[in-house]
């Protein structure tokens, strides 16, 4: 079972770029990798929670039904969100921008 929803290679690529742009306080390889993993998890969580929160509560139950069916294709998910009035790409872009600004502008952990 994947611990991320979004492909971790894609997440990792984005996080690596972020980490290169900001001085970090990690002193060991272990600290560095822990920080990288945590950042990836935070990003994955931020994007998907933003997507789920874009749906009204009554639509969430319907969405959960789609998830319960393992045969639901990506197109069906796309159509579902579109029919629900959600622009998935915009939600994702906005979340990435906010995450990036927070990462570069805030305190690193």
């Amino acid at each position, binding site marked *: *079972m*994947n*611990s*991320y*929803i*979004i*492909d971790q290679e*894609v*997440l*990792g690529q*984005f996080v*690596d*770029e*972020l*980490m*290169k*742009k900001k*001085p*970090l306080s*990690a*002193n*060991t*390889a*272990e600290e*560095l*990798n822990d920080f*990288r*993993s945590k950042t*990836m*998890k935070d990003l994955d*969580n931020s*994007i*998907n*929670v933003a*997507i*789920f*929160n874009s749906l009204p*509560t009554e639509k*969430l*139950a319907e*969405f*959960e039904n789609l*998830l*319960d069916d*393992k045969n*639901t*294709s*990506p197109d*069906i*998910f*796309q159509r579902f969100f579109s029919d629900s009035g959600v622009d*998935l*790409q915009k*939600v*994702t*872009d906005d979340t*990435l*921008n906010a995450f*990036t600004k927070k990462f*570069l502008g805030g305190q690193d952990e």
Partner: protein
Amino acid sequence: MNSHEFERQKPPVEEVNTASEKIKTPRSTYQERGAKTRESVANQKSSPEQSKEALITRIYKKAQEHPGYVAVATGLVVGAAGVAGLVASLPSANLSSAEANTSIVGEQNEQIGIYDGYGEKGMWLSGDKGGKYDFASASEVAEVCDDDECEMVKYTAHNQVESFADYLANLPENLQPEGFKGLTILETEKRLEGLPDAQYEEMEKQFDETIDKAFTREATINGTQNNAYMRLKNPEDSITHDNMEVVACTTNESDLRVMQFYWTDENGNEIGHMNVKMTPVRDTNGYIVGYKGCNQVVSSNPHVYTDMPKVPDSPPWEPGEPEKLKAKDPNNLKRIDKQINQAIEDAVGTEKVSVTPNQGVSNEDLTEKPSSSGSTGAETVQNEGSKDAEPVQNGSNNYSEDRGGANANEYAPVKSNEQAQAEADANETPYDQAPTGGADRADVLSGLGIN
């Protein structure tokens, strides 16, 4: 000697009882239990926001396992003005990729092993993996942990999720954490990797506490044993997570040495144990100078190795640095021999005993002086201060046959017969030919021609 024996606290009674009760009750799967817990918690909350939060939590978990949704979410990130494009709009990078990877890590990579940063929870591999059938580089772990076996197990578990799963699956069931009881190693690993970070860290903390309560002792085990280890899928490729897999093997062991972790209840009764293979290397004095390989559990329970790729039962032995067993110090034996010989010399002396043909007379009774008769032989006289000897008589005071070598305290009659004296002088054995101390009395007499 385990310094923790008198320091560690025994597990509280309620923990043991709780574990026993939960073993007896029917178990649902971890995910079912978790979902019910979240659902029951969600039902307790009254506000719509809290209900939605609970629903989103449940949906999040399901979304992780749905390939269709995963593809959608991944595509969204890739399509976000292109990942590179989005990042390019950010302030210029201060460090190149190479600098970012080396400036912070630097020498640490070489000291504590190379972490490939694949993204799984704490996948740690050593650039020098050591033995082919290792779980980790035990020598590096031992160096970091100062040869403390408990710390070595904790460190290995923290830095290699497969090791963590191996330990958890092989713990005594009453010590296994909730949600992990009775699972195989692979099931445990899958469950661990699926945990959110906070829960994973809690699992690590619980595991550390369990290991801290363990006592350790060296043991030897026999019979069919199972163990798991990491191996390269393709030995020609580099050591990365993608190229590694955990496999199981079965071996028939005889006097296999392991480090046994065991736990006791509040009464000091043993409640379970776990054998970890940490092969020590000893010097000629028997002191452990390091470890080679392993760190994995050795178990007679085949269940936990279910569904794991199997390797042939007897992996080919690879000659390596031979384990040095504690040997006796040959120098010590020689030293002891020397001490014994010296003691003998001090007690007995090195002077050779001279045997005179004039039996019955001790050396102290004799003094050589020129013969008053002009003969070339020495005339023996009785020294001043020596005791008078009894005349030789047949019977009770014929001490001659009781003599065995010179003895200052024994007195023997002196022959007053000149003829006997002359015969004795003629038969006198030169001192350098006289038998030394320890010679058999019969040999001495025989050497003198006396039977």
